[in-house]
């Protein structure tokens, strides 16, 4: 070890904070809802992570485990996912997008919630109607469990180079997020695609023209 870096564990501890402050390793009394939205020309993908704090875990469990048997059945999970997605509203250029389709969801064990480390992860997709090229506005509103929730909402960098996000507008709580973006036209067949075919066609044509004509 370098000189001066090895420090004995004997620590004189006088903390700068009041000792009576309860230590929280993580969120306690809030329900964190973190949304990430991927905008593509034909669809929007939603990844939504839901993490109830320790103090609200029992309420979440009661909401999930409707038959109180201590086990989350597939039906209970489906019901919960459906209720959450129903509460997540999406509008494209002022018109509602009616249907989220759940792609995947993972649920932690009930005891994970009680320890404050349980995160429900939802992945859903909404198909967008045909859009003209140009400016568009996608409005996202999370109305799920408004009491005691804190929100994060962010657009991911689009995978398609046809979509360029120009702005993100939110309310102060991040329940609402409007993504302004520009959609560009799908590029036509690129030179790399049509050039070999065109050259082949020209070669065939040239061969046909140069072929000696037969006379009977």
């Amino acid at each position, binding site marked *: *070890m*370098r000189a001066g*870096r*090895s*420090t004995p*564990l004997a*620590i*004189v*501890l*006088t*903390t*700068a*904070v009041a*000792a009576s*402050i*309860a*230590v*929280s*390793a*993580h*969120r306690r009394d*809030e329900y*964190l809802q*973190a949304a*990430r939205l991927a905008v593509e020309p034909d669809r929007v993908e939603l*990844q939504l992570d839901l993490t109830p704090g*320790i103090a609200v*875990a*029992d309420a979440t469990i009661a909401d999930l485990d409707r038959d109180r048997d201590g086990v989350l059945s597939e039906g209970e999970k489906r019901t919960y996912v459906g209720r959450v997605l129903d509460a997540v509203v999406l509008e494209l250029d002022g018109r509602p997008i009616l249907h989220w389709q759940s792609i995947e969801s993972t649920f932690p064990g*009930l*005891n994970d*919630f*009680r*320890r*404050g*480390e349980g995160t429900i992860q939802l992945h859903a997709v909404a198909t967008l109607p045909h859009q003209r090229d140009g400016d568009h506005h996608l409005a996202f509103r999370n109305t799920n469990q408004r009491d005691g929730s*804190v*929100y*994060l909402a*962010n*657009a*991911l*960098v689009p995978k398609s180079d046809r979509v360029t*996000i120009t702005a*993100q507008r*939110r*309310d*102060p*709580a*991040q329940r609402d997020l409007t993504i302004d973006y520009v959609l560009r036209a799908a590029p036509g067949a690129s030179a790399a695609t049509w050039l070999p075919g065109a050259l082949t066609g020209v070669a065939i044509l040239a061969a046909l023209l140069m072929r000696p004509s037969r006379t009977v």
Partner: protein
Amino acid sequence: MHSRLRIALVALAGWFAIVTATAVAQRGATPASAGAQTTVTTRIVASAQALLNTLDDAGRARVQFPFDGPQKTRWSNLPSPMFQRTGLRLGDLTSTQRAAVMNLLSIALSRDGYRKATDIMRGDEVLRKQGSSVPRGGGPNAGGGAVNPGGQLAGRGRGPGGGVVFGEDEYYLAFVGTPSVTTPWMLQFGGHHLAINLTLLGSQATMAPSLPAAQPASYTFEGQTIRPLGRENDKAFALINALDPAQRSQAILGYRVADLVLGPGQEGRTIQPEGIRAPALSASQQTMLWDLVKEWTGIMNDAFAEPRMAELRGNLNDTYFAWSGPTTNGSAAYFRVQGPTLVIEYAPQSSVDHIHTIYRDPTNDYGAKFARR
């Protein structure tokens, strides 16, 4: 004819020099610094080997993981056993073995980085001495979760009744891949509020993703006030207060950011950048920005941190600084620095005394770029 030949040769040499310089810049290292980096990697590998030599077969098996296995992404800000870590637990080691671990860290990290890591660990020791705990909500394994007032640990990494435990013993070391100068491997060290993931391949190194955090954010040790992330906090507040009103209006987000957006488990995601673009900052403000960024990049050994900073400065035009919250130092405020190969987030957890931060490279988390080269 001769003069034309000479001109051609000069042009060819110039072209070669430009191509070489461009390639070196893209790799983020000059040949001389690449040599220095390889030397540091060699020292890290030797130190890792020295540690392995202090272990028995069981210890060596416990610390070693395959490079392409799931261990790489097994890290968290949470304390044990809320998050169950694997590897060598400091509390299980002899004094010789523990000294070998700390020696390895002192070589892999810069002086400031080592100080930061040990300050974070001591902060957790403060929590342990306070007898603090995370309450348990019940369930079959719940037992109230209180660490007993004397701070005695009840079993390996677990408090009485299975509760959460804090302290310097609760940090784990793992080698993901075999320590080597010629093949990629990762030095993984972490515990509550600390995750260092240093991936090495010869002259190349990345510390992304890593998570330095702090609670308490300020404590007294041997008569001195220790703030593990104090410089990050102070430099960020200095920067936001150095902006004029027009710049602030671009930098400050009009909404609350309650937590890290790209924290643990958010691999492979890139959010749309927001805030003020670095070219809109004055030269002195840009210097402040890079000085702030260096608090994260500079955790790893200087030989690796310097080329990393050069790479980031090269992305100035696409680097953003965003802020959410009050601008008076001492307040709880979130900030983010984001560029094409960088994400830094600083997120107070409801108070200034509990800070989470994250450092990522969207193009090179866990050395993804090394594998492609």
